C-alpha cells in the first residue's frame, strides 16, 4: 500500500509539471489518475515498495500518455 503522503505530493508535483508543459488541466488529471492506478496495480503484490520502485513504474506508465511529462518527472531533479 503506497503511503498517502507520497501519493499526494506526487500528484501535486505532476500537476505543476503538467501546467508548465501546457497540458490542459483535465487531460493532465486523467493521465495522472490512470498512471497512478496502473502503477498501484503493478506494485500491488510486492512486499516492499521503495520510492524508487514507485517512481520508476509511474514514469513507465506516464510514458504511455505523455512523453514530455514522463521525461520531466524523471529528470527535473537530475538537471543540477
Amino acid at each position, binding site marked *: 500500500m503506497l503511503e498517502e503522503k507520497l501519493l499526494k505530493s506526487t500528484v501535486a508535483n505532476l*500537476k*505543476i*509539471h*503538467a*501546467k*508548465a*508543459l*501546457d497540458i490542459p488541466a483535465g487531460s493532465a488529471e486523467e493521465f495522472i489518475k490512470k498512471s497512478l492506478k496502473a502503477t498501484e496495480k503493478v506494485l500491488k503484490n510486492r512486499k516492499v515498495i521503495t520510492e524508487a520502485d514507485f517512481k520508476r513504474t509511474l514514469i513507465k506508465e506516464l510514458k504511455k500518455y505523455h*512523453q*514530455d511529462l514522463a*521525461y*520531466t518527472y524523471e*529528470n*527535473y*531533479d*537530475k*538537471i*543540477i
Partner: protein
Amino acid sequence: MLIQAFLQLTPSVFTIFYHYALGKTSKKKADDQSLSFILGVEIFIAITFLITYIIIAFFIAEKDFMNSIFLWILSGIFFAEGIFILCCYFKNGKKSKSTTKLFIPRSIAKSFIFRVEHAKNRSDTIALGFITAASELLFILPLFIISSIQIFKLSRNSGFIFIIAYIIIATLPLFAIRTAYRTDHNFAEIQRFRVKRKLFFRLILSLGFIAISILTFISGVI
C-alpha cells in the same frame, strides 16, 4: 568572458526555475520572475568583478605585483580547472549519461531545487540568482582576475565597456533559455537539447581554460 557563458550550473538552475514558475504562476509572472533571476546573476558578476578589479589594480599600481610567479600560479590554476572540467565537471556513470548532473554534492543540488520550488517573490528570485552565480566562483574568479589584468591596460572608457560586455555575454545563455521558453519550447525540449550537447560544452570549457592557461604562462615568460 565567452568561457563563463558555457558554465552549466546557472543555466541548469534557471531552466528548472522557469519551468517551476510556469507550473505555479502565469506565463507573464514566470517571465517577470525570470528577469529577476537574471538580475541577481548580473548583480553578483558586477560586484565580484569590480572588487576583483580594484584589488588587482591596487596590486599592479601600488605594489608592482604582476610578476611571472603570480602569472604562472594563475596559469596553473586555469590548467587544473581545464583538466578537472574535462574529467569531472559532469557526473560520470551509466545513470548520469542522459542527465546534466554536475560534480557538486547531491545535498547542495537538492538545496538548489528546494530554493527553486520555494522562491515566492522578487527578492527570493534575485537572491537565488545571486547565490547560483556565487556557487560558480571557483571557476569564475580566475576569469575575473585575468580579465581585470587586461582591463587595467585599457583606457577608462574601454574598461567600462569591457565590463558591461562581460556581464551581458556571461548571461547570454540565460536569455537564450528565456527566449526558448517564451517561444513555446518546454523543459523537456530544452533539457534534451542540453543533454545532447553536453560533450560539446565540456570540450569548449576545458579547452578554453587550457588555452587561457597557456596564454597566461606565455605572458609570464615574456
